[in-house]
């Protein structure tokens, strides 16, 4: 597992800078490439300008465009609809489950634990 083989990249969509930084750090430590977006709209802009990431780590409660809106927008787009999305959110279990109906492949409740996060990322990258 060399660095070169692991560059998907992993797209992290999270508005809280501390959370984003820590997610980025642990994913980088495992040798993945990382791209970041601070809200749904930035993520959409990134996706339209770049090749698809191997997986997206997505927060739900964000300003400008939240995670549910982004999921809905991706669902309607043939190219983006195939990107696996791992939701990482502090929302209640009920709210997390609404993301699943919008196509999220995994739901992780904050605070997310390292093993669970890396396991989810590894599945797709």
């Amino acid at each position, binding site marked *: 597992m060399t660095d070169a083989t692991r560059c998907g990249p992993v797209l992290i969509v999270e508005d*809280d800078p*501390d*959370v984003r*930084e*820590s*997610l980025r*750090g*642990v994913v980088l*430590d495992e040798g993945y490439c990382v791209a970041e977006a601070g809200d749904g709209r930035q993520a959409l802009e990134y996706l339209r300008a770049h090749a698809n990431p191997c997986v997206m780590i997505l927060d739900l*409660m964000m300003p400008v465009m939240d995670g549910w809106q982004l999921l809905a927008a991706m669902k309607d787009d043939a190219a983006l609809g195939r990107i696996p999305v791992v939701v*990482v959110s*502090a*929302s*209640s279990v*009920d709210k997390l489950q609404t993301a699943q109906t919008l196509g999220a492949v995994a739901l992780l*409740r*904050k*605070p*997310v*634990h*390292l*093993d669970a*996060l890396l396991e989810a990322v590894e599945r797709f990258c």
Partner: protein
Amino acid sequence: MQPFEWSKIIDALGDAVIAADRDGSIVYANPAVDRLLGWAPGDLVGQPLIVIMPERMRPAHEEGFRRYLSTGVARLIGRSVRVPALRKDGAELDIELTLTAQRVEQGQVFVAMLRDLRERVELERQLGVTKYVAAATRAAARLAERLELQHVVSVAVTTLAQDLDAALARLWLRDPASGSLELSASAGLSDQVEGSARRRIDPATYPYKVGAVARTLRPFLSNELVGDDEFEQEWIRREGLKAVAVLPLLCGGELRGVLAAFFRRRLADELFELLGTFGALVASALENTRLYTQAQEAIKERDEFLSMASHELRTPLTPLVLSLESLRRVVGRGDGVASETVQPKLTAAVRATSHIESLVSRMLDVARVHEGRYELRLETFNLVGLLGEVVDRHRAQVESLGCTLLVHTPEAVVGTWDRLRLDQVIANLLSNALKYGRARPIDVRLAASDDQVTLTVTDRGIGIAAGDQERVFDRFERAVSGDKYGGLGLGLWITRKFVEAMGGAVSVASTPGEGSAFTVVLPRHGPRPVAPDGAERGVA
């Protein structure tokens, strides 16, 4: 045979008997007549019959009397009628008159029986009051049916209009912020006379009775609408309204509203009094809705706060947990001195953060359990396996306390439960045993029958006084002081809620100074369906 002494018998009758001849002169009156009409014994004899009739009745009487004598056509003879009679002192009273004509030796006589109706009128009045009391009692039950403002105001006015015979009833509620009165409900004539009611009243300046009642906090009750300028209105005359009651709705001396009702007949004092009582009932129902709404809002606010706080705390916990776990992983791969000194500190930090995480989860659980917003997710699994997992999670704590934890279970116990909730139940009981167990041995015992399982966690710790044993399952209740033992006092409350949701029961047996045994009994194959009326409750 002696002739019968009829006159003695008639003299002794309680009912009044009076007789007059063809000239209209009284020829006989028994003592009951004298008593009823206030004459001295014997004085009526020889008087014209018209002396016992009010002036206004006399022409009709004389005309009828003449007609009968000349034509034999009788209108009253042989019938009973309700008429006013005149007493000697000029007062009138209602009597029932039964008139007969007889031919006797001396010629034709007219005999009348007079029955005092006052008692009957009193009886009818009492029956009327009884009817209203019954209606007000029914209304009290209806008022209490729902703790909603709109329900209370509408029951108040419809009761007045439908059961208490008001022609029109209106209720104004006081807006606590502005002090003004807002018309909140009307019943009866209100549709036709809506224009006459002001929707919003400022009691300080409103010149009419509703304003005065709101200012003085005293009821206005009247049977005399005529002559009062306020009531000299076309619709009041047209509808023949005779009485009005305007009641302040008071609670603890504070005005909550004003209730007004118009009636088509005059009201007895007892009915005015009953209306006052009805007003007090309505006021207290209004107060109940206010307190209920306030309590609901406070609970909602608190739960929203708990939800928000839980959410807010989870976000900064994320980088903390990830960084610590990542550090521990890196240090674990490393070697020598750094690893030896750093590793235990990291382990302590990771344990502390997972403790914070479980406190945060529990906080949200309080809100969700309270709202009944959690759903059971039943699945079939081996309880022995789950028990092992939970015990393993507590190994580090058991070791650091230096106590022993013995687990006694059958080989496997497969059943249907909510895995996450049951995990939390076992974890709560284990945490408590470790916390209050004074580092002495703890026993965890699982037993199963075909349809139920019994889990007992026994410690040899400080124990719980008999008086506190029920209380420990209540929210925010703890048997020990918060200074010595930390915690929120939520664990056992949540445990009880989850166990009950799965159709089971949790109990405690304890001796202070010797230890406690918490026992959870659960149905093995999921909760029984509860009948709609809850009849199944407690059967298990």
